Structures are given as C-alpha cells and as structure tokens.
C-alpha cells in the first residue's frame, strides 16, 4: 500500500516535467532592450 502511494506521488511529479530547451528562446537583439523605450521610438520616428 505504501509502495503504491509513493508511485502515485512520483507519477504526479512526472506529469509536469517539461523543459523548454534554451536554444528555442531567442534573446532580444538590442544590447539594452527596453519595451517601454521601444514603444516611444515607434511613434516618434
């Protein structure tokens, strides 16, 4: 019975295991990214 309980807990953890590989995240190209500053630039060019 105890063993079953432990197994259920392990499975529960496994359900959520997901790792987003770092190489699928592209960093901003600006050396000093600023979402607020970028917004201002769009409307003042």
């Amino acid at each position, binding site marked *: 019975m105890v063993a079953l309980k432990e197994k259920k807990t392990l499975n*529960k953890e496994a*359900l959520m295991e*997901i*790792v987003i*590989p770092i190489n699928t*995240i592209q960093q901003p190209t600006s050396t000093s990214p*600023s979402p607020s500053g*970028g*917004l201002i630039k769009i409307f003042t060019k």
Partner: protein
Amino acid sequence: MPRKKLLLVDTNVISHALSPNQTECYVNLFKKLETDFRFIVTEFTKYELLRSSDKEHRVSIEKYITQNMATVDLSSILIGFSARIYYLYKKHPKLEVRISDGDVINAAFSIAKNCAILTIDNTDFPRLMFAETDRFPVSYTSKKGKATNDTVYLLTPDMLQIKTCFEDCEA
C-alpha cells in the same frame, strides 16, 4: 544584481500598447515592470500581431519585438505540452473554458517556465490554475474621445493546483 524574472506578455497587451491613443500609459506600465522583469513573447503572439497589420506596421512591430523582447520558438516540446493543456481544459469538470490556441500556448509556456503572464483579459487563463498577483489600472481616451479605464493583470501559475488538475484528468 539579481537576475530579472521572465514575464510572458499576452498578445492583447501589446496590441493595446501599439494603439497610438494608449501608448503613453503602456510606456509607463512597461517602465515600471522592466525593473523586475525580462519581457518575452511566443512566436504565436508575434504571428497574431503581424497577421492583422499592413506591410509598414509588420516591419515596425517585428523590429520592436525582436529588439526589445525575447521570443520563444514554437518547438515540438512546447506544442506537445500545449496540446496537453488544451486537453486538460476540455476534460476537467471545473475548467469549462473556451480559450484560443494562442492563450493555450502562452499558458503552456508560463507553466513550463513557472513565469508570470501579463494580460488584459484574465478570463483567458483559468483562475483555478492561475492566480492574480497584481493588477494595474490603465486609463486613456478612446478613439471616439471617451475616457476609458482598463485593467492589466499579472498572473502566476499555481503549480500545486495545476499538478492536481493534471492528476484529476490524467492529462
């Protein structure tokens, strides 16, 4: 200096921010959040923004996002996990929600990275799974000249509750 936390920005927030009559209030909001967060969007959000823009605006929007925010590719891992979230929304008795694919993908990324979401529509992310951690009033004058007040929400995934939901549905 501590590393800034990730903040996933929903399509609707950027869409509002890019409306000339609302830009000023979103500049102020983004300025406040930039001190603690690194902004990130999924490629699906980029697609949603670009698909309704003409060529000139497409170029400006793409440049704005690429320069100032991190972007997440629609990898097979992210799409696979998004499918599980969609299944969970459909099957769970307490999650009777009709949610767009873009918001499902955003929810999946938020859960996978345990990062906050900035959205103007908190019904896009089920309250059973996402907790409101902050809210920001945004006031501007509509295109018809009417004083308008919106609320922008900061939500974070409730990991314990989400694990329970997954277990309930074997999603």
